[in-house]
Structure formats: C-alpha cells, structure tokens
C-alpha cells in the first residue's frame, strides 16, 4: 500500500485545493492515469499517478485545501494483497493558514481589559473547522460553537456556509492567483539566483528556408513552427552541457539525466506558465510540435497535468513571430538556466565578404552563476546556434 500525496507543482506551491476525484475507491489505475483535479495558482491541474494498482481509499473530500506532501489517497499496488501503509516518516504537517479577517461586528466592543486571554475565555475552534473556514473564506468570529465546551466545530462552519452560500473553489485560471504565483517565484529568483546573461545573434536564414521547404510538402495539420526546432536544438545541446540542466537545491546543483523543457506559454490578457515537454532530446520534431500544440491548448484552458509542472529541468522562452529582438529571462527556481529566443528579423549581415539581407535571431542565455560560468555558457549558446543552423540534424 502506498500513499498518493499532493505533488509539488513548482517551487512556489505550498498547497492546493482538491476540486474533483476522477477515480473512486476500488477503481484500478495505471501509471500516468489522471486521478484528480487540483486547483492551484496555475489553474486547475490534472494530477497523475505514477504507479499501477487499485485506489484503496480516498482520504480527502473535494473542496479541501491540502498541503504539498500530505496524503490524498491510499493505493494498493498491482498484485499486492490488502496491506496497510505504515508510514515510517511523518508527512509534513499542514501549515496553519491565516484565518480570514473576522467580520468585525457581532462582538461586544467594550470588552473588559484582561492581562491576557485565559483558558476559559479563549475562543475554541477545532482544527477541522479552522481548515474548512480558511479554505472557504468564512470568518470564524460570530459563529456559534456546538462542540465540546462550546468549541466551533466543522459542522458549525458548514452551517454558516450553507447560509451564506459562499462559492466553492472555482476551476480554471484565476489571473489574480496566477499573478501571485509568478510574483513569488520571480521575486525569489532575483533574490536568490546570481544571474548572468549572454546573447548571440544567429543567422537562421537556412533554418527558415529548410522549414519552409518542409512545410510546403505538408498539409496544415502536419506543418511545423520554428518553436519545436528551438526546443530540439536546446535539448540536444544540453546533453553536452549538464550544468545548465537540473535543479539547485539545498545549496548544491543537481544535474538531471532527463531533459524536460519548461516551455514558457503566455496567457492572453496576462500570465505565464512554463509546463514541461518531457524528454525533449529524444522526441522527433513532429512529436515536439504535437506536444507543444497540446500544451498550449491545455495551458490556456487551465487543464495542465501535475507531471508537466513539477519537473521541468530548464526553461525555453521564445517570443515567436510577433515580438522584439531578444529577451533576458528570469530563471524559474530551482532551475538554473533559461534560454531565450527573439523574433527572427531581416537584417543586414556580412556573409563572406558581402553584406546582404539575412534572417537573424537573437538567442540568449540567463544562467545561475552558482551552477556554471560564462565561458561554458558561451560555448553552450554557440553550440545551440550551430545546431539550429543545421536543421536536418534535428
């Protein structure tokens, strides 16, 4: 028996609200199945399971806010007889959430002045009631407790909710929440990561011509954009530059054997998510294109999967065909590098001993100086450029 726990979907995530179970107790699950939907600052995320077995028991009701690492369900492994999970390690304790500001009235204003609240006068509220009130934004002040010693218990909060009709947590992307998540992650990045930046102009005339020729022979559904070429060039190059692919945790850089590229996807009207395309180095360009199309659609619909959020090892941000010359990125912690691509534009360029118009794109690297140095960064960026210029090798 194993515990299926709330996954961490990024360095900034502390908890998530379980919105919906897609599997019930007794149902068989296999690796990669989506078994629940969790509301986070990045939208409603489909949570996958990474073992095969049977759902033994669901531990959390929809609407519950659950801290990262806390158990959500018990899963019996395939072929395993009914065995109990004896947790040797205690899961992280849920953090207490700040109770919402009490709705001021209903409390006598003139209170006798006391040195400090004594045990007898202190308001008692059960942990379960506090939890529900915090999740649903209900003020505890003013509720009548019916529990032991007049304590406010969960049922009292439920009664209050029924009366006020407080909304249940909503699905999809909440721009305010997403803004907060970006703010937290980017502030942490600039606070903790000593960034250095490198830029390089790449002549992509041949690359674009190759792409155009390829697409000319294909119907629209099979055509490629430039983006999958960029992803593949970065992914292949990272194999030789492990110091840009991995995570900086607990004061040490841990390179990753897998190359999962966080792909920055803008949300119309503001907001940004960088979900992962897994094993980008071994995916064919067509597969990368399909993965990217799928990812863009689901990002904008607010339906990403947990595995796409918790394990990118590097980020690629591309401005597409309607942007500016270049970008200098802010690394998404705990990653250590972000590769940026500007919009290709026709520029005067020296080829041989002549000046002529060429399509030029600015590639950039923002990297963590704790994990790598500028010299290696420069070699890396040059190698990415070289691969891009030989698209048939992608």
């Amino acid at each position, binding site marked *: 028996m194993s515990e299926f726990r709330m996954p961490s979907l990024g360095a900034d995530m502390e908890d998530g609200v379980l919105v919906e179970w897609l599997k019930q107790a007794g149902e068989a699950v296999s690796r990669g199945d989506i078994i629940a939907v969790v509301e986070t600052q990045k939208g409603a995320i489909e949570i996958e399971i990474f073992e095969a077995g049977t759902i033994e*028991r669901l531990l959390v009701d929809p609407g519950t806010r659950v801290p990262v690492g806390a158990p959500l369900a018990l899963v019996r492994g395939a072929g395993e007889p009914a065995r109990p999970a004896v947790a040797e390690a205690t899961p992280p304790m849920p953090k207490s959430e700040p109770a919402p500001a009490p709705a001021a009235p209903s409390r006598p204003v003139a209170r006798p002045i006391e040195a400090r609240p004594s045990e007898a006068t202190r308001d008692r509220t059960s942990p379960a009631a506090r939890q529900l009130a915090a999740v649903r934004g209900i003020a505890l002040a003013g509720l009548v407790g019916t529990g032991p010693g007049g304590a406010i218990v969960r049922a009292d909060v439920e009664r209050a909710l029924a009366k006020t009709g407080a909304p249940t947590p909503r699905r999809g992307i909440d721009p305010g929440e997403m803004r907060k998540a970006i703010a937290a992650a980017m502030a942490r990045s600039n606070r903790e990561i000593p960034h250095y930046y490198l830029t390089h102009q790449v002549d992509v005339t041949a690359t674009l011509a190759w792409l155009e020729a390829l697409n000319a022979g294909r119907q629209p559904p099979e055509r490629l954009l430039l983006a999958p070429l960029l992803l593949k060039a970065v992914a292949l190059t990272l194999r030789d530059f492990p110091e840009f692919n991995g995570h900086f945790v607990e004061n040490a850089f841990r390179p990753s054997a897998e190359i999962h590229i966080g792909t920055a996807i803008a949300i119309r009207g503001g907001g940004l998510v960088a979900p992962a395309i897994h094993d980008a180095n071994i995916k064919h360009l067509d597969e990368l294109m399909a993965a990217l199309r799928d990812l863009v659609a689901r990002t904008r619909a607010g339906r990403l999967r947990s595995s796409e959020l918790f394990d990118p090892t590097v980020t690629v941000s591309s401005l597409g065909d309607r942007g500016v010359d270049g970008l200098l990125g802010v690394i998404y912690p705990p990653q250590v590098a972000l590769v940026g691509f500007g919009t290709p534009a026709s520029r005067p360029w020296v080829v041989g001993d002549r000046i002529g118009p060429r399509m030029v794109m600015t590639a950039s690297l923002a990297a963590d100086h704790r994990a790598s140095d500028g010299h290696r960064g420069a070699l890396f960026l040059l190698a990415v450029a070289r691969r891009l210029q030989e698209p048939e090798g992608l």
Partner: protein
Amino acid sequence: MSAAGMVQTTYREAVRAAIRAALKADERVFLMGEDVGRYGGCYAVSKGLLAEFGPERIRDTPLSEAAFVGAGIGAALGGMRPIVEIMTVNFSLLALDQIVNTAATLLHMSGGQFNVPVVIRMATGAGRQLAAQHSHSLEGWYAHVPGLKVLAPATLADARGMLATALEDPNPVIIFEHVMLYNMAGELTADAGAVPIDKAAVRRLGRDVTLIGYGGTLGKALEAATALAADGIEAEVVDLRTLRPLDTATIVASVARTRRAVVVDEGWRTGGLSAEISALIMEHAFWELDAPVGRVCTAEVPIPYPRHLEQAALPQPAAIVAAVRATLGR
C-alpha cells in the same frame, strides 16, 4: 455463505482448531508450554491435542519461561515452526530477555542470516479475579519492540485464522488472547482459515466518532456503540487486530471521516498503546479533528482482586459512552 456453511463454536475451540490445522499442515509445527499436554492448557485450549498428536508435538515443559521460550527460539532457528504458549503475559516477563534480546534482535544482529520463525501465544487481560500477577495487559510493551509482530485476535474468525498466517511469517509473532474471550460463542464458517495479519478492520460503520479498540476491548466498544446509537450517535468501531505494526491508514481514514476518536485500551494510560494511537492521529489527521482524542484505559493501579474493584478498574461501556459524549459536547 449460507447458514448451512456455518458451525457453532467458541473462541477457545477456534484457537484449538487453528493449532490442530497447523499441526496437520506442517510437520515442523509443534506446541510447547506449561501444562499444554496432560492438563490440556491452563485455559483448556489444547485439550485433546496430546492424545491426537503425541508427546513429541505437544510438549509439556518445566516451569521456566526463560528456558522453554529460549528452547522455542532455538527450535525455530533449527528449522522448526514452534508454537510456544505462555500462561499469561505477566509470566512472559520471565522470558522477556529471550523475546526482546534474542528473538527480536537476531535477524538484525546476524546481518540478516538468522531469522526466528517462532509464534508465541499468551493470555492477557483481567476480568477473572486472578489478581494483580495474572491480569495485566502488557501487550503494549511488546508492541514497542522492533523485530516483533504483535497480534490481538478479538473475533472467532481471527482466533481461527491468525495463527496460520503468523506461522508463515519468517520472524517472531506474538499472539495475545484475552482471557475473557475464550468462552465467547458464535458462528464461524466451516471452511474458515488463514486471515491477513496486517490490517485493522472496521467492525461497525458510523459517522460521528471512531472508537478504536482491540482484543478484549472490542466487545466493549461495540457495546458502547449500540448504547450510543439509541441516542442517535453513530460510532464507527475499528478493531486494530495487529498492534505492531499499526495500520495507520485505516485509523486515519476513519478519523478523517468522523473527525473524533476515542481509544479504548485495557493497558494503562501512561506510556501505553493508546498514547501511541493518539499521537498517530495527531500526526496524520490533526486538521481533520473536531475534538481532542479521548482515551478510556485501565485505572493506574495493579488490577485488584475483589470483583467490584476489578470491574471498576477496567474500561467499561459506560465510560466509553461518556468519553464519546465529551468529544461531541453533548
């Protein structure tokens, strides 16, 4: 299962049937202990087995717990599958060195080379006016020790089924049989056999509070649940079945649903099993709780001899009902 497939039996007969089946199934199995042969066992569990299986396999031993438990451990190391019976947990203290220092540690100290597949059965608990040296519930002490598995069958099916599974375990297993259960009568399926020994069981479903008991306290918890139901309070009753390792998942899942728990333990409160369960609930389900975890334990005295004092010292349904009401505030 149709009624035709049921047989009338008692807890004592179910334990005996389990031993008989084990002796028949595996010639390495034998029973050893004080008075298990000619006398038929101090609680008459092994009556008739000497005649059926002979003195090689039903062995009366000298009155030295240290010696015969040690012999059982030696036999297990030598490839046998001994069932060692100790009259009561109080007497097992004389064999504590063998159980804790030898049986529980050998696998570890031999770097995994020697396992000790011994099963030790013993009676536990009070209620028969046997006074302070024959009535204590010390199973929580054994549940403290890594290297041991500790079982507490509370039902006929578990009395019949736990032994076979325990004998299959490559490591030492201790089975506690509560003295007040031996006469418990009821029906058991004719083909009852081995049961899992690693999972607690929900014996009654309820939504308002979880009562957690085992062995001798399961019946009292169920009795309290019936009384509470008359007042519209629905108690869920969890039978721990295995005291080590505890089935945290089942306990936590139930408490997460009912949001209240009362642990019923015939051991003493201080440093006892009930404290461990309460701590587990705190660690795993704190945010689910609507009330502090309640405990109903034996009074912190040596078990008294006079009947009225003995009964007053033990957890009783009325005390369980009161503890439940305290968690509900009504």
